[in-house]
């Protein structure tokens, strides 16, 4: 057999991946410069590591398990408002934690809507605080992501296959086994690994809903080591442990994922003959209703509180909203510059293990990366004016694993299906991107950009360490309001933040899917 021909795209990917590794490594060099020998890792930290892994595994498995029926129901049904619903369902993922916690408590808390309802019916109170509360909150955050990733997979099944299945008169069970199950095997492990990593870095949510120090996570231990003990050695060590766990999970998932591209269809509109029938329609409707209620009720609580707070909001909130928008746009630009070449490179490789590189930014803890860079920049320049660009860069790194998970599978499909055609036409490099890959991946590029923008708007990030009074971001401003007793005005700011994040997400997502069947 002739040696494998040069891939048609992927040249810049190695460089982009290298940059990501360099940015993170450099930050650890920075930390190393300042670290002194501290007290090391004790039993409290080991307990934190154990709890972190347990809650992250449970949260990842349950998020994906619940996402499967929800994504399936959404993929099979068309109804008015479906597009808006799908966008709204994505909202929990981008909420700042403090807002999300108060929203969840308004529904599931001791005096929340659920317990008020149970009380009215004479039923005992359900407590949200404990491991189950942590998992519930994490499912609330991550079910939307898992659902979107699965939904995207569902949409990648060519319409012809369903047509063929209908012609063969396959019952829904067989359709699931022959068409949908192979797809799940390809998408679910990656989604689960990604959610595992997000939950690994959870901190304030886990503590609050976990009911106390039982629910101490590694990220809390990092924060404590850094902020309270200023033990950079211990903080860095914990951060490396977190990185190792995340990397392990990623490699395992990417190893499990079978590597066979789905052959392309003719990009025809999808009709699901197999989903006809009253019973199935009712089941899907019930799943969509239940899923939406779970995800949207806390958002509704945030909306109610926010509307009351809007008139109390000081005008400075709008100025910080402008800063946040600037950071978000910069994050999107940086992300696309890194993620597209990397996705191209990963897609041309036999195995997807290189995607694990994308996770190191998220799992090494933004606090540590930001601190490392602060140490590196400080001798050369004043880090304060660079606060916003550095925040944007770190936000892009945080979003990178999501973008890769969104981009790699469809890119693999496109390359698998059109590689020979492209070669015979001599299409490679930029031309291949321009004429082959980008037009087919518009929806995914839009989704990834929207997610990055929204995450960037909602993230407090490293700016809290060294923000100038005039360079605050919206989340920071919201925390300042809360810290000054102005809880109601803060709720208003949270609503502005939510609207901005969703708006940005909707614009990018919709822009990507313009004239494309969703």
């Amino acid at each position, binding site marked *: 057999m002739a040696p494998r021909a040069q891939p048609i795209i992927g040249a810049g990917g190695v460089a982009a991946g290298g940059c990501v590794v360099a940015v993170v490594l450099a930050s650890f060099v920075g930390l190393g410069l300042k670290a002194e020998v501290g007290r090391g890792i004790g039993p409290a930290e080991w307990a934190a590591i154990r709890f972190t892994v347990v809650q992250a595994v449970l949260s990842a498995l349950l998020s994906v398990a619940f996402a499967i029926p929800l994504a399936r129901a959404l993929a099979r049904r068309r109804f008015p408002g479906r597009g808006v619903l799908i966008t709204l369902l994505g909202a929990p993922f981008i909420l700042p934690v403090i807002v999300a916690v108060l929203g969840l408590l308004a529904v599931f808390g001791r005096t929340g809507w659920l317990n008020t309802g149970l009380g009215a019916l004479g039923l005992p109170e359900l407590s949200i605080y404990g491991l189950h509360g942590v998992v519930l909150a994490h499912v609330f955050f991550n079910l939307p992501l898992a659902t979107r990733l699965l939904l995207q997979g569902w949409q990648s099944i060519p319409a012809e296959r369903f047509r063929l299945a209908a012609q063969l008169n396959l019952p829904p069970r067989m359709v699931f086994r022959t068409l949908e199950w192979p797809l799940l095997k390809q998408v679910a492990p990656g989604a689960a690994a990604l959610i595992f990593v997000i939950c690994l870095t959870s901190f304030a949510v886990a503590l609050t809903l976990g009911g106390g120090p039982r629910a101490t996570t590694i990220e809390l231990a990092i924060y404590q080591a850094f902020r*309270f003990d200023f033990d950079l050695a211990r903080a860095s060590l914990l951060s490396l442990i977190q990185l190792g766990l995340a990397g392990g999970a990623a490699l395992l998932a990417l190893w499990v994922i079978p590597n066979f591209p789905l052959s392309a269809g003719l990009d025809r509109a999808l009709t699901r003959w197999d989903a006809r029938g009253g019973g199935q329609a009712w089941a899907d409707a019930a799943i969509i209703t239940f899923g939406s209620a779970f995800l949207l009720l806390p958002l509704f609580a945030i909306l109610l509180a926010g509307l009351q707070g809007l008139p109390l909001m000081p005008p400075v909130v709008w100025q910080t909203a402008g800063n946040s928008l600037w950071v978000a746009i910069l994050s999107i630009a940086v992300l696309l510059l890194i993620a597209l070449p990397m996705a191209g490179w990963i897609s041309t490789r036999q195995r997807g293990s290189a995607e694990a590189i994308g996770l190191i930014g998220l799992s090494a803890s933004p606090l540590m990366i930001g601190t490392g860079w602060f140490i590196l920049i400080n001798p050369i320049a004043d880090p304060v004016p660079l606060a916003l660009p550095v925040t944007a860069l770190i936000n892009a790194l945080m979003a990178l694993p999501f973008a890769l998970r969104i981009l790699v599978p469809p890119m693999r499909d496109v390359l698998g299906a059109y590689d020979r055609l492209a070669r015979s036409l001599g299409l490679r490099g930029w031309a291949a991107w321009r004429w082959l890959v980008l037009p087919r991946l518009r929806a995914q590029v839009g989704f990834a950009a929207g997610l990055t923008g929204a995450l960037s708007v909602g993230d407090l990030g490293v700016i809290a360490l060294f923000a100038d009074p005039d360079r605050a971001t919206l989340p920071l401003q919201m925390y*300042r309001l809360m810290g000054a007793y102005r809880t109601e005005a803060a709720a208003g700011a949270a609503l502005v933040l939510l609207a901005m994040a969703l708006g940005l997400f909707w614009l990018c997502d919709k822009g990507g899917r313009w004239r494309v069947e969703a």
Partner: protein
Amino acid sequence: MRRTFLALPLLLATQAGAETPVLTVYAGDYFTSEWGPGPKIEEGFEATCKCDLQFSTGDLLPRLLLEGERTKADVVIGLTSDVTARARETGLFAPHGQDNSTLTLPIEWTDDTFLPFNYGHTAFIYNETTMDAPPASFDALLEMDDDVKLVIQDPRTSISGLALVLWVEAVYGEKAGAVWEALAPKILTVTKDWSASYGMFTDGEVDMVLSYTTSPAYHMFAEEDFTKKAAIFPEGHYFMVETVAKVAGTDQPELADAFMAYVLSADFQRMIPMANWSLPSALPEDQWPEGWAELPLPEKVLFYSEDEAEARKAQAIETWRRALSQ
């Protein structure tokens, strides 16, 4: 194109104030917001100094430790007593040069480096419309029904949380472990910071929140809400103080000294209560803003010196963690 875009904030930052001397003051993040004390302090000081006071906000101690000798700060405002030990170790600070005897704190202050500018005490806050029998002592708090729910802050991540474990340590000493075990069923949850706890309290999720004796003042004077009260315990309340310090390597030593003097001036001290929702460090009670003197405050004040707090901290946190992890 992208390069100029990145450089824009940098240019804007360097344009201001090339001729007038600049005093750079590092402050806690909340400090400079328009409702915080920062803007009023800036206005008040600039009126006397013919200089430009510039605040730079962030996480004070980590930032100072990271910057070390290269710090641009001339003065640092907002260091709490639990971090002064670590801050002193850096050797970055010079004596404050002010007369400690003008202070009106409920404890004796002898530190010649860190000068207090406001204080308060830890306290549990409740809503009198929903709680008709608030505990009248710390012992009574422990004996309360387990249905009464509290929210506290984590001593590993929050200054007020740390003050609470030191409070328990100061009141109960050896018995602290048993005290935490008695409190555990009443503690609904623990939050990372004060804001999340207080949000849960105002949302009605908990009956009592760990906060400050001065918290009711915000509700009284800013919202005309007189239902939020601090439960005052005869066992005493833990003292919390915020300090200001002069950086030894400052290139504006006269301005920095002038600022330290300004901190103790009546002008500065009078604005503290309403802007910072805490008590002024050098102002007799009869000069406090109207209504403030009626705020219920503890008779007995507990406080560990810097070294003592440093020595007890780790063990007190571990006792807390063990008891609440069961």
